[in-house]
């Protein structure tokens, strides 16, 4: 059976000469299939939003209403979670949401899913985490540390709960990164494993037993494909919602705790 992990391999498409960066050392800057998938995702987002908004009418057509629904959904979300300051953070959340959504959904059509690479999801998670920390310090100064000082808990418990809060805060980028990565990678491995069963049954590797294996595995592959489309959207949505929740923690620090 084919190796289900083969699809995650990074292959060089255009090899560029190595660059030596100060403090980091030699860096390989080839144009890989991961770059290509991300570039296509970026182009799809830009093209889609351009097509949607170029011929904007008061009464939206089919394509325009898709764009408006996406836009309105994120606008609603930032507004309802962060509050009246939410619109300030809308561009960041919308950018991250559409880009992850494009890469997830394109992963179902192309042979490579950019979001199934740990490095890429880690970058998104660090961007979000960095923004949360920066906004926290800019808006609250050193009052940012109130986030870890639970006012609701009894005084004796506060240092303990605060420590736990602090570590769960530090774990946020890790869970953010692993959730997207694990969901996309796990889904695509499961798809390839069942597709491999179909192929093995068709070439006769399972003998007469293949007559039973083939329809079951094919049905499972079709079902999983549908599920993966749902997961692709859901994970982008969950990433955006969690970004909003984490931003809300620091934006409304004074009146939330």
């Amino acid at each position, binding site marked *: 059976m084919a190796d289900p*992990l083969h699809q995650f391999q990074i292959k060089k498409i255009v090899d560029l000469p190595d660059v030596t960066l100060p403090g980091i050392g030699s860096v390989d800057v080839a144009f890989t299939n991961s770059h290509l998938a991300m570039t296509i995702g970026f182009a799809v987002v830009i093209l889609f939003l351009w097509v949607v908004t170029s011929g904007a009418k008061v009464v939206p057509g089919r394509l325009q209403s898709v764009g408006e629904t996406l836009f309105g959904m994120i606008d609603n*979300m930032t507004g309802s979670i962060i509050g009246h300051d939410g619109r300030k953070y809308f561009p960041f959340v919308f950018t991250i949401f559409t880009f992850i959504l494009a890469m997830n959904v394109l992963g179902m059509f192309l042979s490579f899913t950019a979001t199934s690479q740990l490095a890429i999801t880690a970058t998104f998670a660090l961007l979000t985490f960095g923004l949360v920390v920066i906004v926290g310090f800019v808006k609250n100064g050193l009052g940012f540390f109130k986030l870890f000082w639970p006012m609701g808990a009894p005084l004796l418990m506060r240092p303990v709960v605060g420590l736990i809060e602090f570590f769960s805060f530090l774990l946020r980028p890790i*869970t953010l990164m*692993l*959730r997207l*990565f*694990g*969901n996309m*990678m*796990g889904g695509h491995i499961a798809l390839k494993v069942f597709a491999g069963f179909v192929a093995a049954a068709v070439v006769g590797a399972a003998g007469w037993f293949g007559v039973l294996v083939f329809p079951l595995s094919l049905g499972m592959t079709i079902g999983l494909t549908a599920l993966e489309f749902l997961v692709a959207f*859901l*994970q982008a*949505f*969950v990433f955006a*919602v*969690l970004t909003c*929740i984490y931003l809300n923690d620091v934006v409304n620090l004074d009146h939330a705790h």
Partner: protein
Amino acid sequence: MDPQAAKLIGAGIAMCGMIGAGIGVGNIFGNFVAGALRNPSAAASQVGNLFVGAALAEALGILAFVMGILIWIS
């Protein structure tokens, strides 16, 4: 025991963490449906919370999954 076999068994055992994620996600969706049937008018406003809760529960299972994959390919 053959170290290669022990490694594969360990990767399999690491996946047991997914059991907890399954229970958690099942609990969340089950309770959501139970609550939604009692008060259907409030259900639509809680869909966001539903998915965030499911994602948070799932993330812990994903940790086990990643651990299993890491043991398997290392």
